[in-house]
């Protein structure tokens, strides 16, 4: 296609937000654009933002589904704050997404959807396209429905079928705006609709129509060039956090030689891990969709007992249901891996939104003294490495372990530099040898891990269970001294994991005015904000924690290195409570957000500036 005679503007990074009715296919549109951007060498990060209802009433704000993409020619840490381009397929999506658009942003909207009735449903008193309320933006008024139907007229499709391709129009238009190729989308369509040639043809025609519209429409004065990113050379793919978690677990299974067993019950936003793992029977993965979360975790505990790498995946309410069983895994000292993809709570809360509200539940939500290893993934790609490491530590230290991720990084995606399995360490669980002098609670002197004696092995018959057992020999024991000793041994075993953990790093100078502390899925936003502050000359550092229990050994030094400490988290202040409990003499202030939304770089930098200025 010959490009219009418009000028090309170069930009380092761009945020596009796709929004429409939940049936409008905005998730797919966003994904296809992202893949194309990635293929052209951009670094990127994405985040879908969709309603809890599968199909809320059409054209209402409740039914709006969004997808945000942040791509650029430099390292991209987050899915971005405010967008440069907003695609709003109907008035409701404009209504609910305008707040996510920068002043001066380009808004692409389907003007065929602005009938009075639809405007009213979206809560507009007057037509925003005409009442001047969008004066601060560049409006691209596209008759998307009309042009879509025209584009497919030759195929003789009915209006309803034709309208299903409207999203391709928006996509084609964006491809024009950002000088991107259509090939990847063509290939995708050919594969996806291989059995429906008409649908392939219709979508291709509409995609092209959108592109051509871009060439001709006056409102688009220039196209935008985002150069390939100067990121580490290598082979890349796009990956969501949930898929990365699933693959990290599989990698740990491969490296340990322990078959992966997953016992799980579907729950947003963790279900994708179950769905992903269920695809990989070819690699021997056994997924068991249990009748409830309790069966999910207890079947995984049974699988651990039998010698598999037992895993259970869930989200907040499911973790609550699993608590009793987690205590069982603690007292039997089996290497159960728990993945908790956090969402807004309490109770059903905000199922599709993200929060960091389960930290204290993960740490303390069990009866008795029941310590577990806990780590938290920092980004979609980090889910791969964190899942691997959680499973590695669980098996090598014979302790149940929790990996905390959240809906934001679980659903979000990033470019993933494909690693080689040869570069990962072998995982060596302490498996008891046949006919050896096995005692259920004899421990490795260094790690305090007990041995893993697998049923079916000659000479190792033994019994474990939820009743307290005698040290070393593992007989049922109610001896008071023994119970206290076992309690401290279980605690000490988890604490000693710190011996193998890397020291906590500070991003920035070793000392300065403000140390920003964060943990888990917020790393990207906090890091971007800290970078911005540093560029502006502020002495701000960033300590992002991946290891929660135990904390890295140098945590005290890290927290004492700067004049002020500010702990930022998406809850009412759980990590800061935990740090204050551990380091009562270190002053820390806190910044919390509990809106089911990630931080924005803008609000963080404002808070940092204010904190530095405070006396």
């Amino acid at each position, binding site marked *: 296609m010959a490009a219009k005679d418009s000028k090309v503007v170069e930009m380092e990074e761009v945020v596009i937000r796709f929004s429409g009715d939940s049936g409008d296919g905005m998730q797919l549109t966003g994904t296809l654009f992202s893949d194309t951007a990635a293929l052209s060498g951009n670094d990127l990060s994405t985040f879908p933002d969709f309603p809890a209802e599968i199909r809320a009433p059409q054209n209402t704000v409740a039914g709006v589904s969004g997808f945000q993409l942040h791509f650029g020619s430099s390292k991209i840490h987050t899915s971005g704050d405010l967008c440069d381009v907003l695609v709003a397929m109907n008035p409701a999506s404009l209504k609910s997404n305008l707040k996510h658009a920068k002043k001066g942003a380009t808004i692409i909207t389907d003007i065929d959807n602005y009938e009075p009735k639809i405007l009213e449903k979206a809560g507009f008193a007057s037509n925003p396209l005409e009442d001047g309320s969008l004066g601060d933006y560049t409006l691209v008024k596209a008759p998307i429905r009309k042009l879509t139907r025209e584009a497919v007229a030759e195929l003789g499709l009915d209006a309803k079928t034709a309208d299903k391709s409207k999203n391709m129009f928006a996509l084609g238009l964006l491809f024009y705006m950002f000088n991107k190729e259509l090939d990847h989308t063509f290939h995708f369509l050919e594969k996806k609709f291989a059995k429906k040639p008409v649908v392939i043809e219709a979508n291709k025609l509409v995609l092209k129509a959108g592109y051509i519209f871009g060439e001709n429409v006056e409102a688009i004065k220039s196209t935008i060039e985002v150069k390939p990113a100067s990121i580490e050379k290598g082979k890349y793919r796009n990956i969501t956090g949930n898929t990365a978690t699933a693959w990290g677990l599989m990698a740990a299974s491969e490296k340990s030689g322990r078959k992966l067993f997953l016992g799980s019950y579907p729950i947003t936003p963790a279900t994708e891990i179950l769905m992903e793992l269920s695809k990989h029977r070819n690699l021997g993965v056994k997924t068991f969709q249990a009748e409830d979360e309790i069966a999910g975790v207890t079947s995984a505990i049974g699988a651990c*007992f039998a010698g598999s790498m037992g895993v259970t995946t869930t989200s907040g309410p499911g973790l609550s249901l699993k608590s009793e069983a987690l205590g069982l895994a603690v007292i039997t000292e089996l290497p159960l891996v728990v993945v908790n993809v956090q969402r807004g709570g309490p109770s059903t809360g905000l199922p599709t939104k993200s929060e960091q509200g389960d930290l204290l539940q993960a740490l303390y939500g069990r009866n008795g003294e029941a310590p577990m290893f806990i780590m938290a993934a920092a980004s979609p790609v980090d889910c791969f490495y964190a899942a691997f490491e959680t499973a590695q530590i669980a098996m090598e230290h014979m302790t149940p372990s929790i990996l905390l991720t959240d809906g934001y990084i679980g659903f979000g995606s990033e470019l993933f530099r494909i690693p080689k399995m040869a570069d990962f360490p072998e995982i060596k669980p302490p498996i008891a040898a046949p006919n050896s002098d096995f005692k259920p609670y004899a421990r490795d002197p260094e790690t305090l891990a007990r041995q893993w004696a697998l049923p*079916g092995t000659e000479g190792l018959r033994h019994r474990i269970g939820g009743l307290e057992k005698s040290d070393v020999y593992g007989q049922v024991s109610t001896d008071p001294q023994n119970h206290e000793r076992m309690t401290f041994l279980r605690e000490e075993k988890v604490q000693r994991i710190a011996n193998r953990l890397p020291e906590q790093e500070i991003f920035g100078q070793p000392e300065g005015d403000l140390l920003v502390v964060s943990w888990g899925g917020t790393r990207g936003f906090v890091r971007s904000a800290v970078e911005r502050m540093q560029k502006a000359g502020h002495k701000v550092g960033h300590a992002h924690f991946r290891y929660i229990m135990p904390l890295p050994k140098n945590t005290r030094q890290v927290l004492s290195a700067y004049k002020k400490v500010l702990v930022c988290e998406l809850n009412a202040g759980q990590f800061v409570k935990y740090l204050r409990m551990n380091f009562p003499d270190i002053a820390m202030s806190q910044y919390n957000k509990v809106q089911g939304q990630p931080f924005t770089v803008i609000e963080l930098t404002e808070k940092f500036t204010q904190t530095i200025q405070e006396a």
Partner: protein
Amino acid sequence: MTEINNTIEKSPVKLTREDFMSDQMVKWCPGCGDHAVLAAVSKVFPEIGYKKENFVFVSGIGCSSRFPYYVNTYGFHGIHGRAAAIASGVKIANPKLSVWIVSGDGDSMAIGGNHFIHLIRRNIDVNLLLLNNRIYGLTKGQYSPTSPLGAVTKTSPYGTIEHPFNPGELVLGAQGTFYARALDVNPKLMTEIMFEAARHDGTSVVEVLQNCVIFNDGAYDEITDKTVREERTITLRAGEKMIFGAKRDKGIRLNGTSLEVVTLGENGITEDDLLVHDPYQTDPGIHLMLAKMAGPDFPVALGVIRAAKAYATYDDLMEEQIASISAKSKIHCMDDLLNSGDTWMI
């Protein structure tokens, strides 16, 4: 007894009951029916013939669930109600283990009811010994989901006002492929049944009517008392006519769509009129009627009521799926997976 044929490895030497005796002190009350179950297990395990390392006991919580400590096999004493789920994980993880669940009526019918029915529905090849004393023993005498309507217990001083479960009905309702009923006071029948349970491919539920001497003593006297046992129970055996009674003069026949107790020689009734027991038939209709039989009009059915090859086991289907999908797949390791699909060089 016939041979057991499956993939679980057999012992090269003949084992004895001593091989399964644990060194632990058995702490059930003297006279508790659980002792008889333990004795039957140590008697039948050498007959089953697997290597001793291949047996695994999994239990929940309750007096009955202490069982794993008292047999020298691999054992897992779990948490209340969850034995079925733990055992599912054990068996799916390693199908070459012979997995035995021991559970109480509270453990499997109340707190673990959900796992119980789903275990059966999936037909995972494990054996579940349901020690039904119609009471919560360990917590000292509260009524259970199998306590009869009106039962006076510590939490029902005026009698219960809830209708009990009949475990057999529940098993069949959940599409169970194996259900048997045994008496703690009849160890011979119990061992026979346990052997059949082991031989069956699929979830085998063995309900043991078990006396709790402390909190529900005599719960089954009406049928177990020597003076009436022959009259009030019927022991079903595959291929045999359904005959019972001290003088073996009574039988069960089908009258229209219902079962009926008849007396041989009365009204011209002969053995030819009686039903022949077929535990292997797929249709559970008669099995359900047999499981439901109760006094005063009917004898209580004992023995293997159902042992149908109605459908494949979950664990077999899992292994088959893994084998067939692996054979077809081009992805054989993590490196293959990581590099599959859309990738690009930068």
